[in-house]
């Protein structure tokens, strides 16, 4: 279901001046655009942002317009270029702040202030402005200016420590993991801030430390350390209350299935699939109880791993699920594009980009019954909408625009 004129989007009319870059910030403003906000993304062609130079590329990695990574997180945005170090940049941005409801940025704290664009300066021209800042470690404190990004923050936030096999070194949860934790906290906070402004007529500066938000994804372990003085470590794929509980090999190269038995009933169903004749190892007395299975879990995992390899992963998942056993094939990234449930949810949406061609972007994981979101436009080319935004949205005359351009302020 997509938005139509009869199906308005919830953030229609919201005007966003967006300085976000890399992943966590742009994913926040991607949500805003998908749900109807007008998002103007400020970049500089003099210093193309990290993601424009990040793999994968369609065609040449020399182009600043063909990164698939950038293209996914910047849909629906208007792209403009301003050289923020140019003497005329500040006045231009302050003019845009009069237009905007919301300014978003994820620079190291102090960056906006150095440009004369801190919250106080923004508020002076637009007292109702909401500013949303997010940085690795938040404003203030001895480490506020420490640079960083998602893949390292995942470790600082305690998530690498709990990922890995007990007999080996810990490993990062894949990718820039915390970058995908932060945006949902951020959008909830931003829309709450807009509601507060609507009620009270007051602007706000929201500041989110990505570390502080991410800690909520392991909060019980923090409490365990506080209350019980215990530091929980990595457990492979084990779960304290279930057995079998693991990932087992299937037919083919690097094909796997996750299986979890969380009740006697599920274990009994699984027993009957493994040994339909009603005898064999699953029926050994030592495996009859959860306590028994936990005590012999290494052996249990090994026997499970000898049973599954004759199975096709999808077939085994469907068979076990049909009898109520929690099971899921380990989707690799190509499988995601074939996954019947993700297809049903229209998880990937295809857009036509002038340099990349048709590419897949991820849609929101939310279906709003009355005001569904919709992605309408591909990520912008560098500076694609500069003239349109300056003269159309911000009300500059053509002469003013030309003068800024000739001055090099719009590089």
């Amino acid at each position, binding site marked *: 279901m997509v938005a139509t004129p009869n199906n308005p989007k919830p953030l229609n009319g919201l005007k966003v001046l967006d300085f976000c870059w890399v992943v966590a910030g742009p994913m926040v403003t991607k949500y805003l655009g998908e749900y109807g906000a007008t998002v103007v993304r400020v970049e500089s062609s003099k210093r193309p942002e990290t993601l424009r130079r990040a793999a994968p590329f369609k065609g040449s990695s020399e182009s600043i317009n063909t990164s698939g990574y950038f*293209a996914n997180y910047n849909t629906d945005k208007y792209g403009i270029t301003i050289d923020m170090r140019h003497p005329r940049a500040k006045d231009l941005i302050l003019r845009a702040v009069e237009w905007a409801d919301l300014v978003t940025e994820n620079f190291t704290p102090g960056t906006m202030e150095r440009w004369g664009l801190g919250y106080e300066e923004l508020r002076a021209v637009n007292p109702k402005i909401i500013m949303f800042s997010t940085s690795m470690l938040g404003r203030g404190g001895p480490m506020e200016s420490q640079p960083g990004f998602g893949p390292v923050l995942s470790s600082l936030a305690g998530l690498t420590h709990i990922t890995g096999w007990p007999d080996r070194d810990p490993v990062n949860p894949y990718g820039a993991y915390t970058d995908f934790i932060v945006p949902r906290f951020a959008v909830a906070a931003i829309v709450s801030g807009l509601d507060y402004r609507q009620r009270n007529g007051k602007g*706000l500066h929201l500041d989110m430390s990505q570390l502080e938000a991410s800690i909520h994804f392991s909060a019980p372990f923090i409490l365990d350390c506080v209350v019980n003085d215990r530091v929980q470590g990595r*457990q492979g794929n084990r779960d304290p209350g279930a057995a079998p509980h693991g990932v087992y090999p299937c037919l083919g190269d*690097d094909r796997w299935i996750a299986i979890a038995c969380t009740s006697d009933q599920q274990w009994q169903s699984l027993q009957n699939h493994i040994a339909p004749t009603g005898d064999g190892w699953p029926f050994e007395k030592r495996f009859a109880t959860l306590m028994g299975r936990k005590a012999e879990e290494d052996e249990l995992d090994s026997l499970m791993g000898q049973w599954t390899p004759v199975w096709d992963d999808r077939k085994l998942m469907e068979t076990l699920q049909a009898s109520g056993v929690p099971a899921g094939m380990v989707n690799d990234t190509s499988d995601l*594009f074939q996954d019947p449930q*993700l297809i049903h949810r229209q998880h990937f949406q295809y857009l036509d980009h002038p340099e990349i061609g048709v590419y897949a972007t991820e849609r929101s994981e939310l279906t709003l*019954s009355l005001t569904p979101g919709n992605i309408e436009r591909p990520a912008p080319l560098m500076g694609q909408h500069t003239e349109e935004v300056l003269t159309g949205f911000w009300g500059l005359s053509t002469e003013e625009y030309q003068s800024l351009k000739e001055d090099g302020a719009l590089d």
Partner: protein
Amino acid sequence: MADRQPTSEYLLSPYRVLDLTDDRGLLCGKMLADLGADVIQVEPPQGNAARRLGPFANDDVRPENSLFWWAYAANKRSITLDIETVDGCILLRRLAKQADFLIESFPPGYLADLGLAFSDLKELNPALVMVSITAFGQDGPYANYQATDIVGMALGGFMSLTGDSDRAPLRLSFPHFYLHGSAAGATGAMLAHAHRALTGEGQHVDVSCQQAVAKTLAHAPQSWDIEGVIIKRMGVFRQTSADTKVRVNWRCKDGYINYMLQGGSVAASTRALLAWLDEEGMGDDYLNDINWEELGYGLVRTEVMERIVEPLQNFFESKTKDELSQGSVDRRILLFPVATPRDLLEHPQLEARKYFRQLEQPGRDTAVTHPGAFVSAMGAAQVGPSRRAPLIGEHNFQIYCEELGLSKEELSVLKQGGVI
């Protein structure tokens, strides 16, 4: 908001949330509570299923001691209600009439069987925003699949990318599948609220946790879509494209650290680390001679990466986690410790920002340190937790009698009838 006396208003002060979720959705209401909404957790009379989850305070496995519950129910109030009874169903409808949000994480169709589907509740309260958090969404081929955390993390694509290449794919040793969906639920609740604020209309928000996880995979889906490359798990390394990779996790003298040797926009950090190696007489010409400034991010070729591991590993193993972390702050190097919960509790930045909050817990002499606000609102509004997780039905009297107007006698009947 009966027993909360804020010195100033919270972002979401005027709003009431009914939270019917268990561990599959608790974080959603917790986020709204921290933003200032009045969140009432509606528990079955025997207590919320999440209270079965450990760890437990003092390893005493009672439902009031679940630290999972403490973490994700803090800042909420609790009532008990058996919505499967006729009286319970009627009471829930009364509560829903006065609520702004209702959050639930039951299997699809469960509430409809009780006459509590969104279409039923909308009749009573057209402004209600209802959020349903399920593994796969309300319909579709997997809608009725059984999904524990590991099943969801597998189907969401996370596990194929995480773990050592010579072993099975890995999940985190703490369930994240439903946390991603729960956090998305809070986003969805507020987006729906934005529409309600304009029009007065409520709506139903249907969250898929599988999709929420499939959106945590960085550029890996695009690598398949654009290049036809299936990114593989590489343990302490991370594959960035078909023929490039970067090492992420390293052993140091007393633990582990995270450092990614990269070019492009982080070349300055790379140069700063190489200068540190030089200072200590551990410099490496091969490393120094690479043109990091011209190299794009994530574009270090596999054979180059394999060559540069050893000199860096030697350097890291000569220093402790703290020495490396502090030295990196001073030199602006993108290096962080692989922190443990204890490291976080003692972290100077979190301390300076007064992140952790002390919440009184019954039966304990000292307040318990809890994770604090996930955002700060500089200006007039407040955010963050101010109240410990509730006991089972702790606010029954307050909510049923003082707010809903039931008499003590009625409450007694409901209690003895097993409804609350």
